[in-house]
């Protein structure tokens, strides 16, 4: 009796040879990730989609496959993983932000990479401040753990303080904020406009330290002006010693070198400079901390699916191998 076309097609889709081909294509995509940095994650979609369709077709058409409960559970968990990864790609967020000591997060990131359906309004409602951080260095210098004091400032709620570390991020409404080794010094200025406007306090986050130890300079513009102020931090003491344990901290003595066009000025904490359009007052040096932000609501479900997959796989192999001993009988050489 001839099978209906749909069933024939489904059986072709359920083919183990197709599974093999899709796995080989997936491996080729993984190799592409090794060779090139600019391969988009979306290239994973065709082989993963093909594997998902292949698996669904196998579940529908292959009765013996369905009789092996553990194997079925393993593949169903893999299917769930593929679907969850797809959902994750649509809604995830990865980003970065920098906060000077005392600075408040107001929902803005300096770099962001997010899925099409990410709910940005949740992020914009989050409020917290960094109150400072400590980082010890082993000889090298090699960074050790970060301890960053955070003040949670929920809108309309009571502020509270916590300490976050490399392994204990700040978790707010599904967003995880991780302190990182990207940190540095941050001069604090007060800009007094010449037109009598209200003074503005702000910080300038100099390049990451010690990564850019010899490039502690940055050009910036005071609010409401078109001045270009090139600012360089100068100090002579060794903050992070290569031969003994040390800690990250602002230098005890330092000065700022400012260049505005052809004009050169030097400032120490408490000093000020008259500039076109206003007076720049230098209050002192703080630290700034760089954070990575991560949001992915699928993480617990991915973990659960992975655990089910591993348990089911283990059970499948256990059932398969338990019937036959591991220690086979040796051959009788005379038979050869």
């Amino acid at each position, binding site marked *: 009796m001839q099978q209906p076309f749909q069933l024939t097609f489904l059986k072709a889709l359920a083919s*183990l*040879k197709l*599974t*093999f081909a899709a*796995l*080989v294509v*997936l*491996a080729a995509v*993984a*190799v592409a*990730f*090794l060779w090139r940095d600019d391969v988009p*994650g979306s290239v994973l979609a065709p082989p993963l989609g093909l594997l998902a369709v292949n698996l669904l077709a196998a579940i529908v058409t292959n009765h013996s496959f369905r009789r092996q409960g553990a194997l079925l559970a393993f593949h169903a968990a893999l299917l769930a993983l593929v679907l969850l990864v797809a959902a994750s790609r649509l809604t995830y967020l*990865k980003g970065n932000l920098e906060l000077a000591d005392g600075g408040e997060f107001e929902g803005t990131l300096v770099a962001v990479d997010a899925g099409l359906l990410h709910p940005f309004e949740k992020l914009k409602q989050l409020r917290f401040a960094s109150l400072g951080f400590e980082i010890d260095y*082993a*000889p*090298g210098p*090699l*960074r*050790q*753990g*970060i301890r960053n004091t955070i003040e949670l400032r929920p809108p309309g709620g009571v502020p509270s303080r916590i300490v976050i570390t*490399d*392994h204990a*991020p700040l978790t707010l409404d599904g967003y*995880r904020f*991780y302190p*990182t*080794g990207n940190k540095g010094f941050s001069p604090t200025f007060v800009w007094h406009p010449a037109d009598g406007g209200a003074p503005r306090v702000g910080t300038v986050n100099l390049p990451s330290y010690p990564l850019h130890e010899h490039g502690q300079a940055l050009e910036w513009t005071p609010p409401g002006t078109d001045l270009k102020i090139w600012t360089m931090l100068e100090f002579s003491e060794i903050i992070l010693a290569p031969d003994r344990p040390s800690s990250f901290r602002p230098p005890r003595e330092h000065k700022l070198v400012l260049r505005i066009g052809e004009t050169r000025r030097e400032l120490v904490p408490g000093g000020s400079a008259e500039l076109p359009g206003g007076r720049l007052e230098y209050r002192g040096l703080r630290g700034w901390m760089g954070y*990575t*932000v*991560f949001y*992915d609501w699928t*993480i617990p479900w*991915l*973990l659960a699916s*992975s*655990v089910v*997959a*591993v348990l089911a*796989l*283990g059970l499948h*192999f256990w059932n*398969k*191998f338990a019937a*036959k001993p*591991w*220690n*086979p*009988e*040796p*051959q009788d*050489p005379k038979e*050869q």
Partner: protein
Amino acid sequence: MNELQVLWAALVLYVLAGSAAIFAVIWRRRPERFVLAMMSLGLVLHTASIAMRWERLGHGPYVTMFEILSSNIWSLMLAFSLAYWRIPAIRASAAVVMPILFMMMGWIMMADPGDGTLPSSYHTVWLFIHIGFGKVFLGATLVAVGLAGVILLRPTARGAQWFARLPADERLDDLAYRCMALGFVFETLMLVAGAIWAQDAWGRYWAWDPLETWSFLTWLALAIALHARVTFKFAPRTGAILVIAVFVVAFLTFFGVPFISTTPHKGAV
């Protein structure tokens, strides 16, 4: 005795065990109790050496190339010794396995035994879980490689003589498949534990860094090898070639990529 002297003594015992196992195959003798005793004594000394270094530095053997080689030689020897003890029928496969371990022993003798500092991202229990699963995976794969090597050597005249006592190729192939299946379970566990660690340490569970990508490739190579065996009903020789291929990818992942990549996975952040 310091930790290095204890380690060298352990390596000497491993070499004695391996040499005896190889000569036993060539000359068709059975000094199996001697081999097992040397392996066991070597493992005891090696464990002591690792413990002494751990105590002195305050961290386990997973920072420098020397430490990683040492801990892997230890775990691979342990895995193969267990197989050698519990599955007597495959003991002659030591003639294939031990040269691989000799190569690693030669490598560690050239590696700098200097101290390393534990990166901050290594201060987590997931490090032990991740590494532990990885060691079981590689150990199971090594046992499979021994069996695959026997299957591939047997068609030669000498191979047929040397390995005449071992079970038939089909049975060895089945056993290698079991080891690969066990390895697949633990490679999967290693990936899951690694993802948990990465989320903890770097704020993302997967980022396609070179070591992650190579680990995924190893997982895929295993999946392809296991699937191909079911799909195409390969002869034992083809299955053996797949086992060797998976081991090569795994070996590169474990001992090649972490030392040529400067990405965060090296733990240097």
